[in-house]
């Protein structure tokens, strides 16, 4: 069963990794992905992450379950934050564990690809000058990139 959480608080990558690997000797690969709040023009005070409570967790879990059905994983964690997140802070964490690296790499990438287009989160920019920022637009590439998973094992 994957560990899925949606929370306002920051997460501790090392602690989350230990929670999957501690006391085990059969895991040979741990792939960790951390998505950060990025400020491209020096104008961003924070991103405001809005989510659909309940459905956000459900959708991440659906994708996580699919990843576990697809690859021989020995541990899987997905944590997504909501609320205001400052540039440089973490937004999302995925940790995938397996005996060999290929499964962990693929599962982490798969989970992120589908999470971005399926999990109900929306980012709004809060500007440093106090003016109202825009809602971040969805990227078309995020949809088209999903096609690769229908042909790859």
């Amino acid at each position, binding site marked *: 069963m994957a560990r899925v959480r949606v929370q306002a608080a920051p997460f501790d990558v090392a602690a989350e990794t230990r929670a999957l690997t501690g006391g085990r000797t059969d895991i040979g690969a741990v792939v960790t992905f951390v998505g950060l709040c990025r400020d491209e023009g020096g104008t961003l005070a924070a991103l405001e992450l809005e989510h659909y409570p309940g459905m956000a967790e459900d959708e991440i879990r659906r994708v996580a379950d699919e990843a576990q059905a697809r690859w021989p994983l020995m541990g899987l964690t997905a944590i*997504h934050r909501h609320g205001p997140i400052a540039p440089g802070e973490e937004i999302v964490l995925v940790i995938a564990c397996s005996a060999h690296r290929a499964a962990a790499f693929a599962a982490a990438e798969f989970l992120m690809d589908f999470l971005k287009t399926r999990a*109900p989160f*929306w*980012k709004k920019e809060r500007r440093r000058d106090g003016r109202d920022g825009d809602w971040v637009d*969805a990227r078309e590439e995020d949809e088209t990139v999903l096609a690769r998973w229908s042909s790859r094992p």
Partner: protein
Amino acid sequence: MKAVYFAWVRERIGRTDEDIAPPASVATVGDLIAWLSARGENYAFAFEKAGAIRAALDRKHVKHDAPIAGAREVAFFPPMTGG
């Protein structure tokens, strides 16, 4: 049924959620969008690009041709930008 709105759909409509009672002729999610759009300028603005609006019934993604019969909660929101 309960309708919930997120992101700029919520901002344009001006509320986070409401109870709605569409007539029986409103059979699908797409019908519901058209029905809501006729309720006022704020709704018309929120749904002006109806094709871009995503919907969920009881917290599961659905297409606009999905029937709404039996659903307790319908959600409308823009394409998602998490991750």
